[in-house]
């Protein structure tokens, strides 16, 4: 590739180990994040072949998916989860990989800790056996999820065989209205292009609305790229990025910092670079968004209505909407506002960072959540938990009647016992509303922390703008 390049093309070009006609490119990986669920079979594979981890110094592990979010001084009661968590530690010890285990002060959701430790940096290639690895693209890294075979390949060789993705520019301009947040931008994109709309592509988020977001907001947007089908989503690094990174544990220090910043400033997409696809979203008119269906593309403005399948021409699409409404127990054409919910979940790699907790706490402060709603607040990491304590947020949540818990993936993926009961409704700040995602038979409305907090107070799906 020559001539004007996009951000993702530049990062790609900087990591080509080997290129040969008829073969995928061999791409070097700068940071490999590992967790307990998708790594055990990869470590077993290394053991069977007598291989080592090539670059433990570019690898870091943590436990997040399977661990309880209750009192961490107690043992893990689920024996299968306990075995998986123990296996991660055993594997990391054997292969020399640093691991932030259950009792580590650095434990947290893998996509929360990478950035907060300064491990995620602009221009890097970042992979993890987790589809929400796109989160790290907020820093201008090319970051994507991989399967366990690829986890094994990266552990053994620090490289991956990859084919380049198409480029897809997502332009978001304008000033977001009060009550509208990063989550609403990405839910709007998912609703606009659909769950498969970005397949084969890397999104690049650009425009004044994206520039105005803090790093946490950019991570929320990049995080859900996969929910619109794109394996990666990126934001060009700028002063906001550099300010976030400066002084973090693994960020460059002293003279190396200046060298790094100069290099990072070369990364933004060149003028005149051509994208394979482009779409724009008007930030000025964006409303709070919420999903009504069983995939993240099934979303509407909070003041909108559930679609009517009878208005859909394509048979499979009509059937999909009908099945989704049946599963969700919703009536076609009716508003979502006012729908009673059983649970509000504030957490996940999408929305469990300090700014998310602050946004929810600002709404809940001095108020009480509806007694019919179980409200769970799960910070994304031990570091977020410490910051929250320093700001007095746990007291705010507890005084409002929330269940404030220990860091982990929790009810986003419902592997650890935090789950909906069959038929229950949640408003959740997580990223997926697939059937059963938050527990067998559970029904999920995806929304922002602000919408979640407003819903927690009212006990029904609520428009945050009505209480601002």
């Amino acid at each position, binding site marked *: 590739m020559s001539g004007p390049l996009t951000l993702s093309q530049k990062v790609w070009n900087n*990591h080509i*180990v*080997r290129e040969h006609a*008829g*073969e*995928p490119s*061999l791409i*070097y990986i*700068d940071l490999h994040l590992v967790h307990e*669920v*998708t790594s*055990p*079979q990869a470590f*077993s594979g290394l053991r069977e072949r007598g*291989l080592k981890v*090539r670059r*433990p*110094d*570019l*690898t*870091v592990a943590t436990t997040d998916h399977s661990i309880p979010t209750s009192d961490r001084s107690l043992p893990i009661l*689920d024996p*299968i989860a306990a075995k*998986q968590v123990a*296996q991660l530690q055993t594997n990391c010890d054997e292969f*020399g990989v*640093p691991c932030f285990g259950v009792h580590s002060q650095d434990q947290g959701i893998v996509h929360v800790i990478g950035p907060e430790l300064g*491990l995620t*940096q602009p221009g890097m290639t970042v992979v993890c056996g*987790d*589809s929400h*690895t796109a989160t790290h693209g907020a820093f201008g890294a090319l970051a994507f*999820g*991989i*399967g*366990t*075979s690829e986890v094994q*390949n990266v552990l053994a*060789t620090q*490289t991956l*065989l990859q*084919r380049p*993705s198409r480029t897809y520019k997502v332009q978001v301009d304008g000033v977001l209205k009060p009550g509208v947040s990063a989550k609403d931008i990405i839910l709007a994109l998912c609703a606009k292009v659909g*769950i*498969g709309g970005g*397949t*084969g592509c890397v999104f690049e988020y650009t425009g004044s609305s994206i520039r105005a977001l803090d790093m946490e907001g950019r991570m929320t947007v990049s995080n859900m790229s996969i929910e619109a*089908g794109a394996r990666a989503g990126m934001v060009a690094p700028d002063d906001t990025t550099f300010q976030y990174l400066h002084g973090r544990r693994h960020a460059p220090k002293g003279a190396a910092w200046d060298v790094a910043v100069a290099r990072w400033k070369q990364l933004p997409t060149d003028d005149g670079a051509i994208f394979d696809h482009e779409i724009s979203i008007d930030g000025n008119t964006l409303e709070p968004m919420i999903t009504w269906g069983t*995939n993240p593309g099934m979303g509407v403005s909070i003041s909108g209505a559930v679609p009517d399948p009878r208005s859909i021409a394509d048979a*499979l*699409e009509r*059937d*999909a909407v009908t*099945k989704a409404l049946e599963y969700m127990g919703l009536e076609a054409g009716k508003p979502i506002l006012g729908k009673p919910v059983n649970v509000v979940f504030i957490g996940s790699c999408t929305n469990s960072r300090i700014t998310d907790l602050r946004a929810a706490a600002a709404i809940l402060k001095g108020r009480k959540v509806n007694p019919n709603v179980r409200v769970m607040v799960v910070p994304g990491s031990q570091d977020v938990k410490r910051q929250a304590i320093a700001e007095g947020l746990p007291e705010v949540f507890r005084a409002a009647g929330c269940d404030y818990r220990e860091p982990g993936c929790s009810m986003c*993926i*419902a*592997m650890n016992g935090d789950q909906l009961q069959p038929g229950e409704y949640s408003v959740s700040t997580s990223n997926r509303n*697939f*059937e*059963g995602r938050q527990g067998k038979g559970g029904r999920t409305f995806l929304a922002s922390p602000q919408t979640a907090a407003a819903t927690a107070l009212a006990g029904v799906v609520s428009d945050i703008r009505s209480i601002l």
Partner: protein
Amino acid sequence: MQPFIAFESAVVPIPRNNIDTDQIIPARFLKTTSKDGLADNLFCEWRQDPEFILNTPRGKGKQILLAGDNFGCGSSREHAPWALTQFGFRAVISTSFADIFKENSLKNSLIPIVVSPEVHAKLFTLPEDAVIKVDLATQSITLPDGESVEFPVPAFSKSCLLEGVDELGWILNKESAIAAFEATHPAAINTLA
């Protein structure tokens, strides 16, 4: 891995778009540390319905799954192709596949076969016992009426599958190229520090 050889089978149609990995294998079954034992939980929730196709004679012993658009969307769990292959599937036919699922499938001798909407629609109308031939070497499926339809497969993945080798051995042979790259690409971080 065994070398992939051509085979014939009737198809198991699941006419739904956007079948996600949480439907293929729910997350609560990912607490395992092995690859085995996933077949029983393939489409676990849908199999609660006795009339779901995998619970009927039509769903037994077949090797081709026919599904709606964007099959395998959602998570990166390789447990999805593991569950499908352990159940007996060797190919999935759709109009499109999610990126990570497609890559994972190709590493597990499960062929993601992309066909046009027209061919896709025709496949759904085939009688229950109609047999399709899947030939990776010629990258084609052959329908009962003799119509042959080509499908795309990345050349490198195809040769790995036909020879029954995985990528890792190939990459390990490129060690000198990796070492040369590392010499010019200093690490930005040290997680051991």
